[in-house]
């Protein structure tokens, strides 16, 4: 067979698709990223904030989108759909239809003149119809690509040629093309990733929610837009009926989830509890009155993720009300208010009035995605999500096609991002022989040495059509620039970013022997990379460049003051010129990569990571403190899908042991670590030194054993009291004694969600219920009681909970105020607990009591985290670089984490995270060197007093004290150029290259000159 294709198709431009595309493109594969709408960003771009960090969604997402949009090895196909996929792994032919945009993306400068003049208003789908947009529109303000598109259904001209056509008349760059037609194309790729996400459940069919009848009943997605600063009410949180600010908001949970009656969705949507809490918290922040009362009506509060339980606790402290009740029907009240009537646990009926009701709608698969999967012969599960197996969580039934994100199960953003990397690992790993075969590489001429030259500055002033020129007198600014010291060339352009102007700029740099360039146009956030590349093409260092933002921050915001805007433009140009004068060429830093990985911990996570890398040809050193492989999973009977762990584990161990690329170090721990990404040196306890480019930490966790204290429940005192894993041991051994039991009981949350361990252990509800079902398999007549606080069988696991109830397993809820009492009556276990529904105490006599005890971090994780300079959470789990978007990276580059040391998780998520860690590691290992920040800090040892303040403020541990000299030293490979150390230095001994105090002050002083 031929060598496989070195390219991958990613379908879906949401966060998971974008992440998968970036991982692949950065590890040697060419990516075609197909997106149905006119811009990438997906559902995440519609969110206001994200839990549990309350990050602004657009802020953390945009950089990734911009990166994907500009990536040389990502071919972005917007307004496109997959029609058909033929062939198998390594060689697939994909037919794609690209729908017309009617706007030439090469020419569109996103000035918005077209939309301003367009007479046709239609409901804006990005705001879920709460606001309007024009027929020519940007999907959202930060859209990537930042190009307008015409909605052919709404456009007057396209429906009645000869009418309207205003956009074409006013477009300053001639970008409108009414003759655009759909195109079909065939791409050849090696593998495919489907990242098609979900759609929010439409509650219209649930008449009792009042969604169709009452304006002030909105879905959670609509409420996200009402909160968003870029939404229809610009973040002022107005309720739809009268635009007033709601003072009392209620959230109704499980709308379209956990409902086999009306919604036909038996699964839990996993994210709604958390997003409802987040919305309640954020709404409180938005409230101008400060008196907002937020109430969440729920069945089980499912805050099962990292940091979620603490978020829930904090929300309660902040006064968010949590009502364990469900409302049958939303009732109308005066002034468009709403009344919720609910029965509390005591059975009392209570009526409460609200100004706004938010329906926490679940996630479901879009029918179009279902159709596509049918066409592609990809197996779906009973809920129409793509079917996957616990041991290959991102592989579909079709070889060579992978999935990530909510297409396979409702899940949150971190889990989706994790899976995106895992899918990239799968899709790229199978094509590893073809790495770098289809990628493009930009070649630049050698750079001219400009050190000895006096500044010869060129200034390019952009009119941006009329966007700048209609307010700012660009000619005056150009003339002014020409006279500034050091400036030898100044020119005004209609569109500085147009391809011909760019080419001409490169010529000018060469012809005029310019050694510094200023472009006065739009924002550097979108255009700096383009112009910097032009400098490189013209043979000068890209850091000899500045931009003056005379559009976004001048002409667009001072439309009423053209004279002052012109003065300001001159100032901005003068500031840029003053700054660029001091700019020096900076090195394009690179760190050479030692092509080897160190994996610490040989449980399932460590072994999967190691194998994923080894099978792509990368040598791995796998270190395990015990003498055997397998870790925690050895004690584990089966996954909740019913797959026996032992079979999988034995196979996995065999593969690890027989892989020639894996160097096993058993009975070994880590003694010391030095270096940084690309060039770590680690000393093992057996005295060996390992040089490696990356490290994956997968050291697992432990099961909490309540030998004493409040959660003891006779553990260690009565032989019939077990932890979950101890019962698993009896299952593994086929213990006959279990069959004869008449009654068994489980107590959930033993040592989890309690003051000393305030997090949820995520896995125990599902594990305990699966065990109860196993007991029922052994003896269907056994009476089984589950004493629980909230059942957290998120996602598809909800089916298991339902099955348990179907089989007659009885669930009794308790809370911290009403703990179950357990005592020993002459060797027999007795439990008493209050059933809050009937208000009576029930007494149980189980012959087996199982404690679903917490998963706790290992005590020695702290030492390891210090060695790798990684942070830990308060609870003692390892802390990733960013909870939302970098779930497998540490803040320290080149170090990744996977498995239980990150947070308790079931085996399928452990495997996904392990594969994700391998993908991230492969991004480094697949290259000979990795780029490092050029704008880095620099210490002047003459001035350094050795106070070490800089080392404390550096979040990246890039500044360390030199033991010999007692002075601070910056590791340029690790420095991110934030400048925190510069600001903190008391003796002015640290500076940031091209952003030193002198340079910033040069700009400030220049600003003051004419004022």
């Amino acid at each position, binding site marked *: 067979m031929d060598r496989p294709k070195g390219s991958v198709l990613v379908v879906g431009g949401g966060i998971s698709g974008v992440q998968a595309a970036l991982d692949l493109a950065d590890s040697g594969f060419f990516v075609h990223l197909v997106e149905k709408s006119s811009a990438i960003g997906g559902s995440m771009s519609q969110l206001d904030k994200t839990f549990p960090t309350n990050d602004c969604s657009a802020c953390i997402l945009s950089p990734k989108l911009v990166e994907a949009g500009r990536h040389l090895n990502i071919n972005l196909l917007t307004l496109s759909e997959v029609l058909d996929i033929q062939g198998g792994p390594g060689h697939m032919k994909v037919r794609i239809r690209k729908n017309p945009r009617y706007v030439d993306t090469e020419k569109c400068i996103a000035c918005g003149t077209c939309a301003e003049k367009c007479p046709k208003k239609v409901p804006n789908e990005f705001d879920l119809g709460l606001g309007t947009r024009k027929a020519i529109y940007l999907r959202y303000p930060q859209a990537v690509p930042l190009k307008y598109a015409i909605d052919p259904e709404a456009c007057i001209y396209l429906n009645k040629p000869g009418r309207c056509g205003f956009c074409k008349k006013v477009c300053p760059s001639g970008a409108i093309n009414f003759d655009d037609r759909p195109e079909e194309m065939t791409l050849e790729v090696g593998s495919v990733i489907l990242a098609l996400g979900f759609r929010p459940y439409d509650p219209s069919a649930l008449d009792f929610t009042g969604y169709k009848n009452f304006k002030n009943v909105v879905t959670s997605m609509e409420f996200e837009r009402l909160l968003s600063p870029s939404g229809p009410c610009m973040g002022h949180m107005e309720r739809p009926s009268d635009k007033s600010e709601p003072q009392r908001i209620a959230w109704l949970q499980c709308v379209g989830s956990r409902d*086999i009656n009306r919604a036909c969705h038996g699964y839990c949507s996993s994210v709604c509890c958390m997003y409802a809490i987040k919305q309640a918290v954020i709404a409180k922040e938005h409230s101008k009155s400060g008196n907002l009362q937020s109430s969440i009506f729920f069945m089980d509060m499912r805050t099962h993720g990292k940091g979620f339980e603490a978020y829930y606790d904090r929300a309660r402290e902040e006064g968010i009300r949590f009502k364990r009740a469900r409302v*049958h029907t939303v009732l109308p009240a005066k002034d468009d208010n709403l009344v919720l009537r609910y029965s509390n646990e005591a059975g009392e009926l209570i009526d409460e009035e609200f100004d706004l009701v938010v329906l926490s709608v679940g996630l479901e698969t879009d029918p179009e995605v279902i159709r596509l999967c049918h066409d592609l012969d990809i197996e779906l599960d009973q809920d129409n999500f793509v079917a996957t197996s616990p041991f290959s969580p991102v592989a579909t039934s079709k070889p060579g096609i992978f999935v990530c994100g909510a297409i396979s199960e409702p899940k949150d953003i971190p889990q989706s991002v994790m899976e995106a990397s895992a899918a990239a690992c799968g899709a790229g790993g199978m094509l590893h022989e073809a790495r770098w075969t289809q990628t493009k590489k930009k070649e630049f001429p050698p750079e001219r040495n400009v050190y000895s030259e006096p500044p010869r500055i060129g200034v390019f002033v952009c009119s941006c059509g009329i966007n700048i020129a209609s307010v700012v007198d660009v000619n005056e600014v150009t003339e002014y620039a020409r006279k500034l010291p050091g400036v030898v060339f100044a020119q005004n352009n209609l569109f500085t970013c147009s391809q011909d102007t760019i080419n001409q700029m490169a010529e000018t740099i060469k012809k005029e022997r310019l050694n510094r360039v200023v472009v006065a146009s739009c924002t550097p956030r979108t255009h700096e990379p383009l112009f910097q590349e032009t400098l490189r093409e013209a043979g000068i260092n890209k850091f000899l460049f500045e931009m003056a933002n005379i559009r976004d921050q001048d002409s667009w915001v001072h439309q009423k003051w053209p004279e002052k805007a012109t003065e300001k433009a001159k100032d901005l140009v003068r500031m840029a010129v003053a700054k660029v004068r001091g700019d020096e060429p900076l090195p394009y830093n690179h760190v050479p990569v030692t092509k080897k990985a160190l994996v610490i911990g040989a449980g399932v996570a460590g072994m999967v990571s190691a194998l994923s890398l080894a099978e792509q040809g990368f040598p791995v050193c796998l270190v395990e403190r015990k003498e055997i492989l397998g870790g925690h999973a050895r004690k584990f009977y089966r996954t909740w899908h019913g797959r026996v762990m032992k079979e999988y584990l034995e196979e996995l161990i065999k593969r690890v042991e027989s892989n020639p690329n894996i160097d096993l170090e058993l009975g070994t721990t880590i003694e010391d670590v030095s270096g940084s990404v690309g060039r770590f040196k680690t000393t093992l306890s057996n005295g060996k030194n390992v040089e490696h480019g990356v490290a994956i930490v997968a050291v697992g966790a432990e099961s909490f054993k309540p030998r004493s204290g409040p959660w003891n429940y006779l553990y260690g005192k009565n032989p019939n009291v077990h932890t979950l894993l101890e019962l698993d041991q009896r299952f593994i051994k086929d213990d006959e004694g279990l069959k004869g039991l008449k009654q068994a009981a489980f107590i959930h949350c033993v040592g989890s969600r309690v003051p000393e361990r305030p997090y949820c252990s995520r896995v125990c509800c599902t594990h305990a219920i699966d065990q109860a079902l196993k007991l029922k398999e052994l003896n269907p007549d056994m009476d089984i009681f589950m004493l629980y606080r909230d059942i957290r069988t998120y996602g598809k696991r909800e089916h298991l909970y339902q099955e348990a*109830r179907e089989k007659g397993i009885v669930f009794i809820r308790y809370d911290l105020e009403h703990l179950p009492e357990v005592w020993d009556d002459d060797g027999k276990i007795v439990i008493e607990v209050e059933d809050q529904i009937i208000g*009576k105490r*029930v007494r149980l006599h189980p012959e087996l009591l199982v404690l679903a005890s917490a998963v706790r971090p290992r005590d020695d994780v702290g030492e390891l985290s210090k060695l790798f300079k990684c942070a830990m959470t308060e609870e003692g789990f390892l802390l990733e670089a960013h909870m939302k978007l970098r779930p497998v990276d540490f803040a320290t580059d080149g170090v990744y984490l996977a498995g239980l040391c990150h947070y308790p998780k079931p085996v399928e998520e452990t495997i996904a995270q392990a594969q994700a860690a391998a993908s991230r590691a492969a991004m480094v290992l697949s290259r000979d060197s990795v780029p490092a920040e050029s704008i880095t800090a620099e210490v002047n040892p003459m001035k350094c007093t050795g106070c070490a303040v800089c080392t404390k403020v550096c979040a990246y541990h890039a500044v360390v004290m030199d033991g010999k000299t007692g002075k601070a030293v910056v590791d340029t490979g690790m420095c991110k150029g934030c400048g925190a150390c510069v600001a903190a230095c008391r003796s002015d001994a640290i500076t940031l290259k091209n952003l030193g105090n002198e340079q910033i002050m040069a700009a400030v002083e220049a600003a003051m000159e004419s004022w």
Partner: protein
Amino acid sequence: MQKEIVDLSSIRARVKKQIEGAVPDAKIDYCLTCGLCASGCPATGIEGLDPRKFLRLLVLGQDDEILKTNWIYSCTMCQRCKYACPMGIDVGRIVYEIRGMRPKDKRPKNLQRSCDLQKQSNSTGIPNEDFVWVVKDVLEEVRQNEPQWRDLKAPIDKKGARYYLNQNAKEPTVEPEEMVPLWKILHVAGIDWTYSSKWWDGANYCLFTGDPEDWEYTVRKQAEVVDALGCRYYINTE
């Protein structure tokens, strides 16, 4: 305050099992105890119960309380709880079964009597001949007093009529003039219809006593009558 203790050394839950035997899709165990039913049930609080508590008593095998409570006669088996219940549990159906478990002599007398009468012909127990006489008498009165309705019809046992019309027993018994508007409407529309002189009552209280055989018997009788007349449609006025 010590609460009552329920010992669950083994759950007997006989009533629950009996219901599950009769109604395989009763789904009692599916209950999430979310309380949505109780929030929307007009009978919540009556006799200290609500649909959720009621199901919970069944699950925990509190059979004595289940069999004793008169809440089963406040629950109208209206199925509004089932309508929105996430699990679609039909409390009304379960209540029906429990009503049937009560010995006939322990049931509300009038309710049982209505069904017993229904089994003879109609729920008020007026003789069929009286019904026929009342219809004819009222029709005659209208024809005489209202000249524009002199050709109004109220056929009984008209074989081959396209439509069969039932009659709630309340009207011929206590307010016979209430029958007339419908006759007029059908007349104006040119509907070819007929009553039956047997099993003409449109209500059916045997639906509520809990004995399926009674219910079946009465419906079967109605169906036989309609088919014997050869009507294409059976118009129900309830």
